[in-house]
């Protein structure tokens, strides 16, 4: 059956939504945080996996989005969704600015530059305590005044689904093809008519916007914003999630966020030792499964229902009508 994976995925989503209330408060919180990381991991995958821009400033944008929304709600009394929208706009603008400044950078230079940006953001948020409350944390308005976390679960789910849908449409469009061409070879992309600078800036702006969205949600879920939301530990965790899942596909990046978040919780009884365990998993992934541990699983899943001969991969090497579009 063609598209069997789509039906299965849809069924799983429906089941998750219907039975979400059976999760206890603790695991519901873990699921919500996993979805927050899911938005961050997929948008970082868009930037690092699809375009090859290895930015280490992604969680800084989540932080900026969160603080922007929280402060605007606090100062101007605007609604939380409007504050979150403002956070997205600010992150898009700043992301475009960073993208423009980094136009000629790639690889380690880009990583170091964005790391510097991230540290500037973190230190600024830490030291400007008149505005941000510094390390004590900024109290924020919460989205719901509910005794259960269920409404947050649904909102997080909706935000993740919409983010994935929008990013999915982007990567399947001609722009997605151009972004991958830039990742593979910028010179060749330019020679083929791709406006490399424009698309690099656009990728930074879009990915930063989604990070801002995630940060805005986080701010109004947790009820407090601290500079640690955008610190290097958080960025490292995001990289681990995306790389372990598979950074060149949005679903595997999200899967990585879910798996890592869940396993980190399951390993909590081992205290700080859970982090070296993840270090080892990351090393093994880089050595033996560079495309991520979940990529083969995902590829197997999307091929469910395809004719057996096609699943062996031999027929796919032959010309197929309309397969590219």
């Amino acid at each position: 059956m063609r598209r069997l994976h789509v039906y299965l995925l849809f069924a799983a989503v429906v089941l998750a939504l219907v039975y979400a209330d059976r999760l206890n408060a603790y695991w519901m919180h873990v699921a919500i945080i996993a979805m927050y990381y899911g938005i961050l991991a997929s948008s970082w995958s868009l930037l690092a996996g699809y375009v090859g821009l290895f930015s280490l400033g992604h969680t800084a944008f989540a932080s900026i989005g969160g603080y922007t929304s929280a402060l605007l709600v606090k100062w101007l009394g605007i609604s939380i969704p409007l504050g979150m929208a403002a956070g997205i706009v600010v992150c898009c603008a700043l992301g475009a600015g960073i993208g423009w400044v980094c136009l000629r950078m790639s690889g380690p230079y880009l990583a170091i530059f964005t790391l510097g940006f991230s540290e500037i953001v973190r230190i600024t948020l830490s030291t400007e305590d008149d505005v941000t409350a510094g390390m004590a944390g900024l109290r924020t308005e919460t989205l719901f005044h509910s005794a259960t976390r269920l409404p947050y679960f649904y909102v997080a789910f909706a935000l993740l689904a919409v983010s994935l849908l929008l990013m999915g449409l982007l990567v399947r469009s001609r722009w997605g093809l151009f972004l991958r061409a830039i990742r593979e070879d910028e010179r060749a992309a330019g020679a083929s008519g791709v406006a490399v600078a424009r698309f690099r800036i656009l990728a930074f702006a879009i990915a930063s916007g989604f990070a801002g969205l995630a940060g805005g949600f986080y701010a109004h879920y947790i009820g407090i914003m601290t500079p640690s939301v955008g610190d290097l530990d958080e960025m490292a965790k995001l990289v681990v999630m995306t790389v372990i899942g598979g950074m060149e596909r949005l679903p595997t990046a999200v899967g990585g966020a879910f798996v890592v978040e869940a396993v980190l919780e399951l390993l909590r009884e081992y205290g700080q030792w859970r982090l070296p365990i993840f270090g080892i998993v990351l090393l093994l992934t880089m050595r033996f499964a560079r495309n991520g541990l979940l990529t083969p699983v995902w590829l197997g899943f999307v091929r469910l229902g395809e004719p057996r001969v096609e699943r062996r991969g031999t027929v796919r090497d032959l010309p197929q009508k309309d397969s590219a579009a």
Partner: protein
Amino acid sequence: MSHGAELVRGVGLVKRFGGIIANDAVDFAVAEGDLIGLIGPNGSGKTTLINVLTGHLDPDGGGVLVRGQKMSGRPPHIYAGMGVARTFQLTQLWSRMTVLENMLVPGLTRPHSTWPEVTRRARRYLELLNLSPVEQLQAKNLSGGQQKLLELGRCLMLEPAVLFLDEPFAGVHPRLREEIITAIRELHQGGRTFVVVDHDMESIFRLSRRLVVMARGRKIADGEPAVVRMDQTVLAAYAGL
């Protein structure tokens, strides 16, 4: 030799890398219908000249005109949009994208292009270049010669007025070299303009209608191949005199 309107002109082009002058006041014009062979010893400045004429390097002196428009400071995609396509000395494909995707990208950059129309056109060129059976393979899995053909195909997807081919025969099996020569000839007869840089003299002499020779960053000869090959300056340059 030139039978059409001028497409690309480099005027007094100078390009320096540190103390080395790669292009020293080079004038170079390409007109519609040309099939130019650009030759010269290693380090004579051929690739630099192509890089400057296609927007991949900014000249330190002089300027480039495409269809009469000044192009200084413009990025390569603007050149591509104006019909100036190029291949690279070391083949630069998008190796983890399929052959068909490699063809689609330039086609889809064209204004008003649609996926079905671009896909149809890509398949037509893949047929012409004998690459249809491998259209779903990743480009990195092609042989060296097939990669050269794919790079040529990718240029054609821009529907360019002029193609600069940088060493299209380098490291290519003789049978595939013949395929490339045949493809260039057919495309030239179909109205395309070519500038071909290569060290394979036999192929260049067979192909070109006009021959330009460079040495030590300067253009030392420009004319009909039969005349240029007897030029004493050219012979001296190749003999290292």
